[in-house]
């Protein structure tokens, strides 16, 4: 089948490529662009390890064809670091609060948490759990993930206040 031309912005950089239409976005990111932050857990739309941010929405990139993402603006966990390469706030809080063990689910967790906190900067613990329901973790029992996100919210709000 003929390849299609796709163009999108990934972590602030414009990318252009030829891809088979049946290519799933997660495979395109990992194999064609070498962006291996988003992981493949279940490959069946359940675990959220492949979550990326597309035009302000958290999306399971294993359940989207590359053509659907044509023309979009995508952020992966790599795009959430500070400009100098140091860990961004949510990443830092996951480290500090032990929000990970094996780390497999972490890129999806952090990318999802980023969008959740954009939409709801001061969530309750219950809202965090509801908002993170599309991401599975087989290690942590979620407790420290929730703590890390609550701490991220505080930190981001404090930063915003300081900037004002």
């Amino acid at each position: 089948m003929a390849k299609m031309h796709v163009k999108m912005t990934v972590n602030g950089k414009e990318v252009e490529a030829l891809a088979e239409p049946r290519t799933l976005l997660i495979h395109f990111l990992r194999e064609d662009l070498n962006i291996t932050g988003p992981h493949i857990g279940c490959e069946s739309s359940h675990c959220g390890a492949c979550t990326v941010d597309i035009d302000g929405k958290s999306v399971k990139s294993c359940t989207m064809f590359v053509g659907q993402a044509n023309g979009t603006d995508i952020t992966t966990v790599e795009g959430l670091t500070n400009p100098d390469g140091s860990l961004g706030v949510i990443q830092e809080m996951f480290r500090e609060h032990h929000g990970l063990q094996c780390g497999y689910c972490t890129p999806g967790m952090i990318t999802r948490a980023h969008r959740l906190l954009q939409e709801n900067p001061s969530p309750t613990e219950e809202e965090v759990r509801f908002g993170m329901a599309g991401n599975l973790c087989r290690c942590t029992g979620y407790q420290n993930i929730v703590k890390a996100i609550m701490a991220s919210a505080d930190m981001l709000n404090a930063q915003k206040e300081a900037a004002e």
Partner: protein
Amino acid sequence: MIPGAFEYHRPASVAEAAGLLSQLGDDARVLAGGHSLIPMMKLRMADLSHLVDLQDLDEMKGIKITVSSVTIGAMVTQHELIADDALAAAVPIIREAALQIADPQVRYVGTIGGNVANGDPGNDMPGLMQCLNATYEVQGTEASRMINAREFYESAYFTAREEEEILTRIHIPRPAGGTGYAYEKQKRKIGDYATAAAAVLVGGGEASVAMTNLSDTPVWSQDAGKALASGDVEGCVAAVMGAIDPADDMRGPVEFKKHVAGMILRRAIDRALSRAS
């Protein structure tokens, strides 16, 4: 889990999309959010040569609310349904049900049109639309036509929509002010399809009741609605229990499903009655 090869199309208008479908025939399928279709394609249970992506069709987006009705574009996502405060004020049961579908990521992309057109008995919106007496507007290469949600579902994955027709909009009559409502769903875990779900509207001498995933189509029971409208809760439950036809599957044996259906329905009725004024 790589789907078979296909050609990708992204039309700019409904007319162009309908033209593509009629020209490409059986081998073409429309793609909305893809969160039912892509999993099926990965499993190679759906095999097609052309995908027609509807994402650019602005004619199929947006929510319009008038004094008597609500019109929802087929490409409106579950996330947009939940976020719309005016819709929540006009028809609150829609937000209540949408919040119980899948998980946040799925709701960002899954559309109401895909959910109702899909024909999967596990989808929550078809039963809800039957409860609300919604009408689906479908468009082929000729004039559009209207199909009532209560007449749309024929059996699992078979609907009254013709292959080359696109579901463009959903029209919902607004329930009278003070109508009590509830969408109640039992699932094995968050993000799962229903073991049983019930949609109930009651108030002002009227009632409507529909059930999800308890037959190969949603089940709307006129007798159940009539009984509930006259205050006969037991009659309503009995009518529903007579109308459902659950199958034995990974969500449990028939007896269990009937038990859950009864519980869920009673809870939905209680909550709907408590909200009616």
